[in-house]
């Protein structure tokens, strides 16, 4: 009894079972993802039976014209949307950070964060209706609609890190620049912008990942033949699933993880 009944020394922070649950949580969080990645290298045709290592599904995906098409569209869309969203968000952040509260400021915040609060499906439906009307009225087709929609919902994600960076910035540096005869524009160009740059980069990265991952809004807004990688995958999930989907997922996963890791490195507070 003494051998097994020995009490663990009392610790203020320990709560019984919590560590177990937490570890379980981490295992459960990563098991499906790891499984998905592992089976993307499966030589067999089925997902659950391992038949040896092979890159054949990556080759298949690479040579699949539909996948190529969707990949290029996804990347172009994400690049454009993050570029526009970051530009707009930077301006908005400069306009709404480090200012005395004025009437309407709360409204601006609410407006910028609105895409985070409204369920995606509702926004998707709303855009479907709006763009249908515009398409009928103007006859304009193309990627514009997707770019506009993605830009809009990427703005809050780009805005947050830029604003955080601005708020943490030392005001005296700009005052010092002004004291050294810099005009407001020179101060902005030579002091504010370089200091703000990590925030802008971080914002752009988040916007890029968010755009790249979007399914719902894209699914509703896209015209026929405008598949992005996620909508292509969503369509494929209804059919017989081959490890090709795993291969595409793994590639997309890799991009997201790389971008997010860079984001972490950029925004980490120097300690």
């Amino acid at each position, binding site marked *: 009894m003494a051998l097994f009944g020995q009490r663990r020394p009392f610790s203020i922070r*320990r*709560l019984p079972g*919590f*560590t177990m*649950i*937490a570890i379980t*949580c*981490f295992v459960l*969080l*990563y098991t*499906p*993802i790891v*499984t998905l990645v592992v089976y993307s290298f499966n030589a067999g045709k*089925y*997902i*659950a039976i391992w038949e040896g290592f092979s890159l054949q599904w990556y080759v298949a995906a690479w040579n699949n014209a539909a996948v190529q098409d969707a990949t290029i569209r996804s990347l172009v869309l994400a690049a454009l949307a993050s570029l526009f969203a970051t530009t*707009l968000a930077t*301006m*908005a952040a400069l*306009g*709404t950070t480090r*200012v*005395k509260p*004025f009437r309407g*400021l709360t409204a*601006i915040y609410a*407006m*910028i964060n*609105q895409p985070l*609060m*409204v*369920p*995606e*499906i*509702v*926004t*998707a*439906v*709303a*855009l479907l*209706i*709006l763009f249908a*009307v515009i398409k009928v009225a103007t006859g304009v087709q193309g990627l514009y609609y997707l770019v*506009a929609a993605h*830009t*809009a*919902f990427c703005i809050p994600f780009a805005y947050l890190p830029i604003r955080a960076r601005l708020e943490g910035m030392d005001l005296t540096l700009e005052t010092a620049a002004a004291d050294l005869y810099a005009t407001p524009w020179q101060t902005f160009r030579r002091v504010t912008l370089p200091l703000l740059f990590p925030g802008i980069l971080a914002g752009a990265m*988040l916007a890029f990942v968010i755009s790249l*991952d979007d*399914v*719902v809004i894209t699914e509703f807004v896209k015209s026929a033949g405008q598949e992005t990688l996620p909508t292509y995958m*969503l369509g494929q*999930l209804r059919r017989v699933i081959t490890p090709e989907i795993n291969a595409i*997922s793994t590639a*997309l*996963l890799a991009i*997201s993880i790389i971008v*997010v890791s860079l984001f*972490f490195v950029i925004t*980490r507070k120097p300690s």
Partner: protein
Amino acid sequence: MLTETAGSGRVEAEERRKVRRSWLLSAPALTVLFMAASGPLLIVLVYSFLEPAEYGGVVWKFSDEAWFKVVFQRDIFDGTLSFADAHLMILWRSVRIAFLTTLTTLAFGFPTAYFIATRPASDRNIWLFLITIPFWTNLLIRTFAILEVIRNEGIINTGLKLAGIIDQPIQMLYSDFAIMVGMTYVYLPLMVLPLYASMERLDFRLVEAAYDLYASRLAVLRRIIVPLVKPGIVAGSILVFVPALGAYVTPRVLGGGKNMMLGNLIELQFGAGRNWSLGAALSITLLAIVMIVLLFYVRAVQRASEARQ
């Protein structure tokens, strides 16, 4: 005296100039957001009061039929009214699944956040990073990953079969259970992050004081830790409940055609159902529920900050 008033006039003009600058800088973002996010919601509201056209779209004629149909249905033959069971069922299922998902993410997320918050400060960022990575990876991919695990030919069933425990696969996919498992998996980080944020600030000297005053571990958890991290619990619950209620991808992939949630019902009206007005009315219903929940949250936050003053 004269110069002073002139001075304050200048200050006022300067203030006005600054406010104008704020608006000008925000204007482009606000314009895009209005055109491609908020503004269209008004159109949805308008559409919900129009008559549906036969092949999608609407006829520009006022009608409250769509709103009527959200709750009631008319018998095709004798025209008697009854509750729209299908809609109400789906609404109820959406709320129930979203609620249960919130509970399960809380049950898993609370100990996990606590675990991270009690690691040495230098290790915390690594654990946090491990939670954040899935958060920033594609929701569809994570749902797909769950699909592969719980499919009939998936990892669990194949494993159990190989182990000789079962002959026939356990049907887990295409059920409310599958949706819940998937959503818990997908939204867990949204629960952990705000919980961690408030636990990181938890003053463990208070925990020490409670133990000193004869509180058992359970009492410390119930009477000290939970009340002190309540803002995190509320924030996490909102962050999970809101997207779970409007979920579209996860129920579509894991629930199959039968186990719809509100998001899928809305989609149906714009697709095969071809009743845009009803779809619009359902969308506004979903939006209204979400707004009520958010308002409740804002009120709770305000009350908390008032109490602090």
